[in-house]
């Protein structure tokens, strides 16, 4: 009967209850949206960095981290990839690479470029590079051609079929130079990648840099992100005698982690303000509900109801309202988040320019994860319960007679 009483009480003033439930619902949707947007943005940044730059785990020569030079390369053949795959069956992909910076030149222009020697199949499994080709085709291993960023091609004023000269330093100070046919152009949403990357096959890169049988690093992709650290530990153990360094992505790009942390902090501040605004909204309703019913509370206490039982009923009422708001917020939030998950917001105009300048993709992707719902739902719920302390304290301290007369 107490539950019945609480349930009916919340529908005594339908309009007020609906307004409160709606305010909680919109609060939940807002909180979910902000959290999802933040998480989506961070995921995108991490994915871009791990898929195109660092990988989730990287195997390097033990000196490479301190001195990222071709001189500090590691010996590699396909059997090494197979061996790594055998170390941990949660490894999804092994991507060998040669990384160096060179001067890239067309007929008229020259620009610094990041030159990556890759295994096209393994690289494609990592970042679907082939799907980003916008002109020409992807090269075949060892065919003497390269694929380059559309932005770099534009700067060098070259196109598919033209020649590209790469000039720089090879292993142990050897001169590295070569002329390659441009077989394709790719477009990457990140300006940084678009404007400076040149891909060629590993055999061609080994020849160019005078490093037969060597590569600079191996990127490892786990089956699932949660396996990242355990795989790294297993690799560490298995390769401990080989003068190799095993690094996880968060060790390789601490500046990104710092940036994400900073971003999270500012979002927390914003969310805190949002929670306060929402909290006052809910508190206003609970305050009205309490003051309006003081007389009723007084009467119930007069006829023999314990204060704590009355407080429990009011608590249950707040619980019902909160749960209704949160569940409806989850339902609406799921619809909104799903829509924007499949149709990310594309920025245009000045915002697009600004984000590209800053090295970010001009899209606002969303993330959908159960913990986002759990976390935001819990915060709003705890807030409602804290607000419920007001009527509880009021009931605990009210003068029965005064309340009955109010």
């Amino acid at each position: 009967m107490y539950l019945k009483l609480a349930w009916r009480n919340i529908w005594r003033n339908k309009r007020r209850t609906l307004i409160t439930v709606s305010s909680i619902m919109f609060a939940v949707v807002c909180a979910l949206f902000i959290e999802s947007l933040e998480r989506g943005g961070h995921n995108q940044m991490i994915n871009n960095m791990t898929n195109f730059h660092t990988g989730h785990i990287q195997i390097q020569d033990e000196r490479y981290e301190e001195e990222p030079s071709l001189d500090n390369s590691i010996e590699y053949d396909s059997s090494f990839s197979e061996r790594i795959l055998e170390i941990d069956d949660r490894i999804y992909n092994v991507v060998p690479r040669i990384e160096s910076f060179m001067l890239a030149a067309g007929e008229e222009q020259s620009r610094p470029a990041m030159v990556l020697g890759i295994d096209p199949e393994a690289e494609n499994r990592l970042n679907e590079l082939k799907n980003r080709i916008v002109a020409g085709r992807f090269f075949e291993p060892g065919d003497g051609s390269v694929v380059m960023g559309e932005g770099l091609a534009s700067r060098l004023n070259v196109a598919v079929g033209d020649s590209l000269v790469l000039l720089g330093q090879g292993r142990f100070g050897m001169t590295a130079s070569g002329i390659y046919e441009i077989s394709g152009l790719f477009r990457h949403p990140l300006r940084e990648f678009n404007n400076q990357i040149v891909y060629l096959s590993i055999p061609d890169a080994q020849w160019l840099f005078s490093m037969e049988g060597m590569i600079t690093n191996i990127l490892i992709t786990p089956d699932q992100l949660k396996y990242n650290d355990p795989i790294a530990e297993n690799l560490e153990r298995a390769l401990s005698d080989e003068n190799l360094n095993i690094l996880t992505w968060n060790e390789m790009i601490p500046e990104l982690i710092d940036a994400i942390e900073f971003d999270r902090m500012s979002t927390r501040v914003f969310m805190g303000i949002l929670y306060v605004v929402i909290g006052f909204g809910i508190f206003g309703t609970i305050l009205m509900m309490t003051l309006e019913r003081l007389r009723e509370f007084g009467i119930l206490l007069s006829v023999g109801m314990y204060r704590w039982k009355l407080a429990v009923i009011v608590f249950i009422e707040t619980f019902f309202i909160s749960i209704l708001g949160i569940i409806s917020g989850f339902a609406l939030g799921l619809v909104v988040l799903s829509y924007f998950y499949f149709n990310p917001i594309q920025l245009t105009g000045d915002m697009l320019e600004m984000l590209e300048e800053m090295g970010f993709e001009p899209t606002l992707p969303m993330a959908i994860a159960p913990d986002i719902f759990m976390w935001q739902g819990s915060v709003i719920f705890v807030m409602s319960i804290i607000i419920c302390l007001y009527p509880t304290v009021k009931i605990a301290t009210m003068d029965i007679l005064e309340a009955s007369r109010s």
Partner: protein
Amino acid sequence: MSESDVIDYEIENNEAKMGIISTKNLSKIYNPDTIPVHALRNVNLDFEVGEFTTVKGPSGSGKTTLLNMIGGLDKPTEGSVEIDGIQITGMKESKLIDFRLQNIGFVFQSYNLIPVFTAYENVSFIMLLQKRPKKEMEMRAKELLEAVGLKDKYHSRPKELSGGEQQRVAVARALASQPKFILADEPTANLDTKSAMNLLDMMEKMNREENVTFIFSSHDQRVIDRAKRVITMVDGAIESDETR
């Protein structure tokens, strides 16, 4: 008559005469440190089982304060209230709540039913607080509503009932806990003549047939006319105490 029979007779006779409610030197002063208001002045009264008593007097004479003291809703500045030999003055609040629940029924001027409950649920609720068995609760609630003439209104909510009907539900609710007495503060104040008379008929019948004790505070002549005992209060003191 043997000596022991005489003693038994005296005990029975004393018990019969002993009041279930007894106020001793009851005084209440509001705002004692600023502008003192003497709501009650040395009130000494005894109420017995089966009384149908009205405390009358003008507004501010202390009728409601007296009922509040007897009901344990207010604390006296001086003096005490005893119910069935138990002093309720100074009792801990949790014990007092329990005591009220088991011993006192309240009928308020403005009915004060739980608006979201039906008539039946309003009456049952008191018994739920008393933790009575469900079947007993159901049976007694129905019996009481039938007794107050609301057999066909079990499932009506307060807003669907007239003022008189709501006050009848309030009386049924007050009776539901099987209290030793019922305190009714201006029970007819918000009722039209017909409803007031019907309500008084019903309470009079319960007093007559079931020996339910009623103590009213009222300045309604209709209530005063029906009372078997009329206590008149003026300025917080008893002016007269007349048994008819």
